[in-house]
C-alpha cells in the first residue's frame, strides 16, 4: 500500500494538522518509507489470533459512581490561551 498526496491531505484533515501545500509531497514520501517497513507484517499468519490491546490482558477497573473530583475550573483556566467568565474562547462558530 502506498499513500498518495491526496490521501496525505485527507489524513492531515482528520488529524487537524495544517500541512502547507508545498510540504505534501515530502510527507507522502516520508510516510511511504515508514509504511513500507510495515508491509513485512503481511507475511505473518494471524488467523484466529486474538488482538492484544493491553499487554497484561487486564480489563477496565470500575469504581463507584460518585463524585471524586472537586471543581478546580479557575486553577485550570489560568493556563488557557483565552477565557472569559469561566468559558474558553474560540473564533465564532455560528454565524
Amino acid at each position, binding site marked *: 500500500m502506498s499513500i498518495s498526496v491526496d490521501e496525505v491531505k485527507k489524513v*492531515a484533515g482528520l488529524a487537524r494538522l495544517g500541512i502547507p501545500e508545498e510540504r505534501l509531497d515530502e510527507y507522502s514520501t516520508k510516510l511511504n518509507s515508514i509504511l513500507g517497513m510495515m508491509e513485512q*507484517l503481511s507475511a505473518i499468519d494471524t488467523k484466529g489470533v486474538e488482538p492484544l490491546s*493491553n499487554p*497484561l490482558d487486564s480489563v477496565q477497573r470500575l469504581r463507584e459512581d460518585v463524585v471524586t473530583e472537586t471543581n478546580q475550573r479557575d486553577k*485550570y483556566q489560568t493556563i488557557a490561551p483565552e477565557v472569559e467568565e469561566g468559558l*474558553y474562547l474560540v473564533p465564532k462558530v455560528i454565524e
Partner: protein
Amino acid sequence: MSHPHSQITSLTQLSLKDLSDGLQAGRFSVMEITDAWLARIEKFNPLLNSFITVLADGARTQAQQIDNQIRKGELTHTLAGVPYALKDLFCTDGVLTSCGSKMLHNFVAPYDAHVTTKLKQAGAVLLGKNNMDEFAMGSSNENSAYGVVRNPWNTEYVPGGSSGGGAAAVAARLAPFVLGTDTGGSIRQPASFCGITGIKPTYGRVSRFGMIAFASSLDQAGPMAVSAEDCAIALNVIAGFDERDSTSAQEPVGDYTASLNNSIEGLKIGLPKQFFAAGLDPDVATVIERGVKEFEALGAIIKEIDLPNSHMAVPVYYIIAPAEASSNLSRFDGVRFGHRCDNPKDLRDLYERSRWEGFGEEVKRRIMVGTYALSAGYYDAYYLKAQQVRRLIKQDFVEAFKQVDVIMGPAAPTTAFKIGEKVDDQVAMYLADLYTIPTSLAGLPGMSFPIGFDEHQLPVGMQLIGNYFQEARMLNIAHRYQQTTDWHLRVPAKFA
C-alpha cells in the same frame, strides 16, 4: 575489583545510597548537598543541555524545609533530602512541563503527577526537569524543541532517547537519580548509550497519572541511576497501585532492596538467538558475549532461546505507538492549554495551525502514521494486524520463561551514534530500539546496565528482561554483577 568508596570525598560523587546514609547519620545537611549538585549543574549543563528547567530556588527552599523536618525527626524516609530530576513530561505543580515541545512551551502544570507526589512526600529534592525527545518520540534526543542533548562520554554523540537528558545527567553526575519513561526503549536505550543503570518496570507497576501520554498501552515510568541498588531505592518509592491510573497494577509491591544480595547461583539465563543475528554491531556483540561469560563465572546457566516473532516488533510498534499517540495528542487543540496560533480565522484554522506550529516534525509524522493506520479502510490491515502480531510476540516470551528465569542480550544494536547521523532516515533511527521494543510490546520489565565499552570508548549496555513483576529479581542480578565489576562507577573524563 576494588571499590573506590574510600577515595570519594566530594558530595556529588556519592551514590543515592551513600547520600541517604550520610543524611540519616547527619554527616551533611540537605542544603549542603543541594548546593553541591546545583553548582555541578551550573558548571556542566551548558556542555550537555540535559536540563530544560533548573529549579535552583525551589530546590533550596525545599532543602531548608527538609533539613528542619529531619532535625525534628518528622522525616526519616530513605530518600529524604536526596536530590533528583524528572523527565519534563511528569507534571509538576507550578513548574513548566514542556514535554520537549513548543506545543507546551507555556504549560505550567496545575497539578503533580503521581510519582512527583510520592517523591515529594518522601522528601526528595527536585533539582530540575530533564530534556527529552518531543512527546517522548525519538531515540537520540535530537527531536527536542529545546535543542539536542550531548552524550557525556563524547559530546559529538547523541545520549539516546527519549529520556536522553536524564541519562546524560546521571552519567555526568549532575543528579544522583532521575525518573524517565519508556514506551519502546526510552529508559533502556539511553541508559545503554550513557553507561548508566535504568529499569522499565512491568506495564502498570508505576502509575501513569500526570505523565503526559504518548502510547497508553506501552508507557511506563522508571528510575535511572548509577547502580541497580540506587534504582531499587527509587523504585520502592514510585511503584504501587494508584486508583487514578485505570491500568495501574494491583499486585503487592515488596521491598526491592531486600533481595539485592541474594545468590544468583544456578540462575537460568536465556539468550534470544534473534538478538545476536544480523543488525548487531560486532563490537557490541563482543562486549555482550564477554559479559555473558562473566555471569557464567558467577554461577549462572546460559541457554539459547527462540523468540521467533521478535523481528516483527519494530513494524508492530510503529503502528501501535503512533496510533495511540494520534489519539492522545488530539487533546492539544490550542483552546484549553498550550500553544495557540495568532489570529485564527475560524475554529478549524485554530486547530490546524496551532497543531502545525506547535508540534515538531517527528511528532507530526507519527500523528499522520497513526491517523492513517486507524482510518476507515486501513484499520484491519494495520492496527488490528499489529495487535495480533503483538500477541504472538508476547506468547514467545511466555514460552521462553517456561525454560529460563531471565533473558539477556544487548540493550541496543550499536553504541551511541553521532549527532545528525540518522536524522534524515526515520527507519534507520527506529531500528535503534530493535531489542527493547519486544519487551515493551509484551509489557514485561526490562533494564539496561553498563557491561563495558566499545573500541571508541562508548558504553555498552546489557539488557536484562524479567518475567512479569520480577523487578526485585532483576535488580538483584544486576546488583550482584555490580558488586564484582566497576563499569557502572566509571565517570566520563570531562566530568570526573
